[in-house]
């Protein structure tokens, strides 16, 4: 061997803890899952999404270490700091591929991703499409406020035409993205819509998305009280609006019906628009791996590599 390489360092010795066995653990109460106090403006819709995530963790007996909370950049994407779980605050728009890396390499974890409309549909638009079509197992909640919050009121890809922002002082000109249509067309297998002012419904959608074996996508209207006050009053009965659920007879496996439903004028419908079962990317990859490994049963990794090298002689 002509190459000398640096010897690896010994990993630090871990002082093993001996925590309670899972059977003896109690569901995590809010005070155990709450971390930093949120930096959001008082009244921001994102608070309710966070509160319901805590509820979900408690109700479904999820343990700290089994959940990974991941986000990109934005007000809403600050989410991971507010939760006691393993978490990652990644870069703007790329939370989905990052989360895919976690999901595909660690089937034992629940992967939750939170983010904003700019993060999801503008800078991250490409990743949204491809993560949806790959059907990577994870739960993705987009806190849609129709505006860029963190950078202080620029037009977002979901801003309605005519919305006056710092970058569209005469009113937004471009056709907004319809997240439901976008998701359905991209091949998402679970597509739902909710709003922060209806906590029970938010929790219900989160549970359904989490239970879905695949890419579970929720658009949650979440008001930015600072830069787009009153944006969702039309969906809030307490403000004289109407919370219209997806009709009881809607067939969520009917793609065309779902698309049609997404066409309704604002504030539109709330509930599960579309839900189908399709093999996940995780399952498809695992199948290839399993099938390939069958040919090498009982062989150590080095023996497999040795065989390959024997053919290169």
């Amino acid at each position, binding site marked *: 061997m002509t190459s000398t390489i640096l010897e690896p*360092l010994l990993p630090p010795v871990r002082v093993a803890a001996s925590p309670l066995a899972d059977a003896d653990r109690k569901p995590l109460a809010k005070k155990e899952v709450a971390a930093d106090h949120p930096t959001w403006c008082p009244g921001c819709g994102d608070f309710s999404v966070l509160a319901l995530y805590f509820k979900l963790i408690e109700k479904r007996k999820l343990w700290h270490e089994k959940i990974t909370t991941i986000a990109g950049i934005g007000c809403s994407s600050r989410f991971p*700091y507010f939760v006691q779980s393993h978490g990652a*605050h990644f870069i703007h728009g790329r939370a989905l591929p990052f989360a895919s890396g976690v999901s595909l390499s660690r089937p034992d974890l629940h992967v939750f991703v939170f983010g904003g409309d700019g993060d999801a549909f503008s800078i991250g638009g490409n990743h949204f499409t491809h993560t949806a079509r790959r059907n990577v197992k994870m739960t993705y909640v987009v806190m849609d406020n129709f505006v860029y919050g963190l950078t202080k009121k620029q037009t977002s890809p979901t801003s309605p035409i005519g919305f006056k922002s710092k970058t569209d002082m005469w009113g937004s000109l471009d056709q907004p993205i319809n997240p439901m249509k976008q998701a359905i067309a991209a091949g998402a297998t679970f597509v739902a819509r909710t709003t922060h002012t209806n906590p029970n419904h938010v929790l219900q959608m989160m549970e359904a998305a989490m239970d879905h074996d695949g890419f579970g996508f929720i658009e949650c209207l979440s008001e930015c009280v600072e830069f787009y006050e009153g944006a969702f009053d039309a969906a809030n009965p307490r403000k004289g609006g109407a919370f219209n659920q997806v009709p009881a007879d809607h067939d969520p496996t009917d793609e065309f019906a779902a698309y049609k439903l997404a066409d309704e004028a604002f504030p539109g419908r709330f509930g599960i628009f579309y839900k189908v079962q399709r093999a996940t990317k995780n399952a498809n990859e695992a199948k290839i791996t399993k099938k390939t490994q069958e040919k090498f049963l009982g062989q150590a990794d080095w023996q497999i590599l040795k065989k390959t090298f024997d053919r290169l002689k």
Partner: protein
Amino acid sequence: MSETTLSVPSGGGPTQISSISEAVIRIAGNSQDGIQAIGGFLARLAGRSEQEVMTFMTIPSTISGGPSIFQVRIGSGEVLSAGDEADVLLAFYQHSYEGHVQSVKKGGIILFDSDHVEVNPEWQQTWRHVGVPISSLTVESIGGTARDKGKNLFALGLVAKMFDLNVLKLTKLITERFAGKDESIVKNALLAFNAAYGYSMEGILETFQFVEGKKREGQQVVMNGNESLGYGLIAAGVRFGAGYPITPWSDIMELLRRELPKYGGSFIQCEDEIAAVSMALGAGYAGRVAVTGSSGPGVSLKTEAIGWAVMAEIPLVVVDVQRGGPSTGMPTNVEQSDLNIACFGGHGDSPRVVLAPANVEDCFYTAIEAVNIARDYSVPVILLTDQAIATRIEAFEEPDIEKVCQDISPDLTPVLDHKPYDLSAPNGVTRHVAPGTRIQSGKYPIVTGLEHDELGHPTGSPKLHTQMTAKRRSKLQALAARLPLPKVFGPAEGNVLLVGWGSTQGPVREAVEKARAGGDSVSSLHLKYINPLPNGLETIFSGFNHILVVEINDEGLYGFGQLAALLRARYADPKIRAINKCDGLTFKVREILEGVRVKLAATSPAPLLASNPAAASA
């Protein structure tokens, strides 16, 4: 070829046998003729014999084929480069003949397909021309299907005959190569090969025999740099990767896609390079170093995420198979112009590790090293190779696979407490606990790109930003202190020290040997650790009057290539200067020697180089 001179016409009479120690054979045709396959067979054969081998090839940039060459240098001694000039040109077409005749040394042999090539009478004075109707004989040998598919095997047969190669071994290689395919394919291949081997060149061309090489201890494996690097990553324990296709990186991702499932892993083709680096980082965060890679344009796209990896201190291996840039540049040519983006690409202060393997064998071991450094220092490591290493085939001693293979599965042992960015950690080295790990204190870590406190929570504290920036820097200073100093090739003191990195190692060393043979005081130093540089290089530099950094990139606005500029910034030593070129081709030994002559002439009234570089390649 040495030990015999080919310029002596052999005339009539029985076939003569000449003994040679090495030969450079250039095969020129179109890519669909299977030029690469001939080269592959020759390289593999040499690996199975007592010869050293090195190849050089061009990949046509058009999809439908087009001109393609493969150059193979086989020698009984150490082979350092693919050779400046060829001894033999095997030309399939007129364009192959006309385009490559100049690459053959005077008196060398032009073996051409007389069905396609019309000889230029003027050139017959300079080179020995041997015509064989390769196309028609191939068709005839296979049974008159009027298709000349198999021409490459016919040509291989001619070369085998000419160099008295081991036919049994070659036949075995051909059979192995087509194993599992239609039986008629093996049959036709052997028919073409045997027909050529039986073709009488009596009286036209003598036979050349390689003198016995040094007996070798271990077995040789034969592969190109991309393969070597891919297998190195597997040996290192990498089980997840993500990428987006781009030449010449694609081969690595295709190999990993095919191979990783055998080891329980997978490789994902992403929508773009940003997704690829992000996905690899997700997997790395999840507990096991993952790989992504690309070539220039894709590496540019990855820079924001690499900066995140520096900030969040997440291990990652990024392969950059350099090609001609900027932008789409010269996709199938070699260049070493990504050193700057590898070391400095991105915003903010973002120290990372950059390693550059020197040859095909080195790709294997450096890949393992990259994985270990990434893990040990929680840092992104960029593996800088280039088109020349990526595609050239070399034989090297089979690694001790059982010994080098390592298991890097994440440790999920519960811990009492954990601070991901502990400022009191020795040398500032972070060791993350992977998700899935229970932390008894109930305080869970966030990995983040925002400046943070020891738990990973955002901070705007001037003090913490200063401390954390120093932490990210000082761990690489600790690494630098552990890096072995490279050995000087040639005497440790003298007049000129050539400094190289990456794929130029072979030609640089050959240049040193040529210069020394001519009585000049020239040594060389090859750097694998580009960032950080190992401590103590200044001591080596102090033993020489001139430090000339040889690299395939432009001399830049201020007259220095990318490594030269880095070394000048680091050592503030005006005797560090540069020898550059950026014609998309590997350095020829002659070009390096000429570069030395020019640089020395510019500083000294008397020529310091006694030997004549022009004659040096003979």
